[in-house]
C-alpha cells in the first residue's frame, strides 16, 4: 500500500528502540491467533498514534506547506532508490533471478540517468519497482509469520518481519556514505517526507475505521499476505469470506479471512428496496 515506504522510513528511526524490545517480544511470542500480544500492541499503538498526532502530523503538514509537490516527489524517488538494494538482495535470496536482474537495472538507471534517484526514469522504461524485504524472504523460505506486533516508532509488524529492521540498515546506500552530518539530516527528511506521503492513507484509515487498531492490524496482515503471494489476489480467502458463518461461538479474536461455516439463506430488507433472498441461485444465462 502507500504506507509501505512510510513504514520503511519510520523503521530507520525506530530501529534502535525496537530491536531492544525484540528480545523481550521473542520471549513473549506464543502461537494461536494472529494477535496474541494484543494488550501490549494496543498500548504501543496508542503511543504511536499520540506521537504522530503531537509531532509527526504537524511536522508533515508544515513540510507539505513549505516543499512543493515536485520536490517532494523527487525526494520520495531519491529515498526509495537509496533503499532499493534491500529489494535486490532479497530478490536473489528468494531465487527471483530475473526480477533481481531487472531491479539491478532499475537501480543503476535511476542512480545515473535519474540523477542519484531524484527522477524515476526506470519505470517508463519498463523496469517496474518491486516490494521485497527480509520478512517476505523468510516467508518464501517457509518461516511462519509469528505474532502480529506494533513496535514503538515503527508501527505494524510481525515477528518474522523484524529482521528487515536490521537488514534495511545495511542495504541502504546512506549507511555507506560514512558522513553522519549528511546521513542524519537525510534520514530525518526521509521520515518526514514519508509521513507526508502517507497522509492520504492515514486519512483513509481515520475515515473508514470504526476500530482503528483492528482496521490497521487486519489491513497490514492482509496486505503482507498479498505481497507474499507476489501481488496476486488471495481469491480463495476472499471467496471464503462470502460464506456466512454458522452458529459457532465467536472467537476471542477472529483472524482476518477466517474460514466460516456454510451459509444459510435468510431474507432481509434494506429500506426502500424490495425484500431480497440472500444469494438465491444464479440467474439463467
Amino acid at each position, binding site marked *: 500500500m502507500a504506507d509501505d515506504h512510510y513504514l520503511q522510513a519510520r523503521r530507520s528511526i525506530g530501529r534502535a528502540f525496537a530491536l531492544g524490545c525484540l528480545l523481550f517480544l521473542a520471549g513473549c511470542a506464543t502461537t494461536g491467533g494472529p494477535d496474541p500480544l494484543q494488550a501490549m500492541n494496543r498500548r504501543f499503538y496508542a503511543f504511536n498514534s499520540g506521537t504522530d498526532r503531537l509531532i509527526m502530523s504537524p511536522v508533515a503538514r508544515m513540510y507539505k506547506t513549505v516543499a512543493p509537490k515536485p520536490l517532494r516527489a523527487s525526494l520520495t524517488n531519491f529515498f526509495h532508490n537509496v533503499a532499493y538494494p534491500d529489494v535486490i538482495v532479497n530478490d536473489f535470496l528468494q531465487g527471483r533471478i530475473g526480477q533481481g536482474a531487472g531491479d539491478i537495472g532499475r537501480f543503476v538507471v535511476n542512480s545515473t540517468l535519474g540523477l542519484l534517484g531524484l527522477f524515476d526514469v526506470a519505470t517508463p522504461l519498463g523496469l517496474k519497482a518491486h516490494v521485497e524485504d527480509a520478512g517476505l524472504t523468510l516467508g518464501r523460505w517457509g518461516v511462519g509469520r509469528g505474532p502480529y506486533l506494533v513496535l514503538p516508532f515503527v508501527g505494524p509488524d510481525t515477528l518474522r518481519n523484524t529482521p528487515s529492521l536490521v537488514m534495511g540498515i545495511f542495504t541502504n546506500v546512506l549507511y555507506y556514505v560514512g558522513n553522519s552530518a549528511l546521513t542524519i539530516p537525510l534520514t530525518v527528511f526521509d521520515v518526514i517526507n514519508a509521513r507526508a506521503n502517507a497522509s492520504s492513507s492515514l486519512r483513509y484509515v481515520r475515515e473508514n475505521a470504526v476500530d482503528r487498531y483492528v482496521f490497521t492490524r487486519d489491513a497490514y496482515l492482509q496486505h503482507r499476505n498479498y505481497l507474499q503471494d507476489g501481488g496476486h489476489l488471495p481469491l480463495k480467502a476472499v471467496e471464503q469470506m462470502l460464506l456466512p458463518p454458522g452458529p459457532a461461538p465467536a472467537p476471542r479474536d477472529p483472524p482476518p479471512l477466517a474460514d466460516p461455516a456454510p451459509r444459510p439463506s435468510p431474507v432481509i430488507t434494506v429500506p426502500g428496496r424490495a425484500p431480497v433472498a*440472500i444469494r438465491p441461485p444464479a440467474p439463467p444465462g
Partner: protein
Amino acid sequence: MGQHETGRRWMGSWAVALLWMAMAVAPAWAARTEPAVAVVRQFQNTLLSVMKAGKSLGFQGRYRRLMPAVRASHDLPYIAQLTLGPYWNKLSLAQHRAFVTEFARLTVATYAAQFRRYSGQAFRRTASRAVAQGDVLVATELTTHGHKDATIDYLLAPTAGRWEIVNIVANGVSDLALKRAQYTAIIQKKGFSALLSILRAKVTELSRGAPKR
C-alpha cells in the same frame, strides 16, 4: 534443418489450434462476465461523475447521488450479514433491519467522503473472470493522470436475477474482512447496541468532514 522445420510446423499447428480455441471460448467467457462488468462500469462512472461535481455537490449532494447507485450495484443486506460473522444469527429480525440500515448509510457516507473531489482519477478495467460459486471477479485499477494508484478487485454475485457487488479488495485487502474484524471485535467487547451507535456516529462524523491531520 529438417527436424527444425518439423518442430516449427508442429508449434505452428499448436498455435493455430490454441488461437482457434481462444476465439471459440472468448465470446462465451465475455458474455458470461459482461453483465457483471457492466455493473462495475456503471458504478465507477457514477463515482467519477460525483467526484467531478464533488465540491459543488457537498457531502449531502454526493450522498444523495451515491445512495441509489450503491443500492443498485451492491448487495448490501448480504454484505451486512457477512460483516457480523457468527453474531448475525444471534440477532433478531428487527436488529438485522436496524443494522442493514446503518450499514447502508455508512457505506454510502464512506464513498461520499472518499470520492469528494476529482484530480485526474480514472478506472481502468484489467480483467474479468468467473470464479467459484458462480461469482465473477472484475479486476480494475484506480489511476491518477495515468499512473496506477491501487488495484481494486470487485467480486460480484448473482442476486435475484442481477449481478451485485459483494466484496471489494483493494491492493489485496478485503473490505469485507476488515469490516468483519472490526464489527465482531466491537460486538464482543461492547455489544450490538454499541456497534449501532458507533456506526451512526461515524456517519455523522463523515458528514461533517474528517479533521485534517
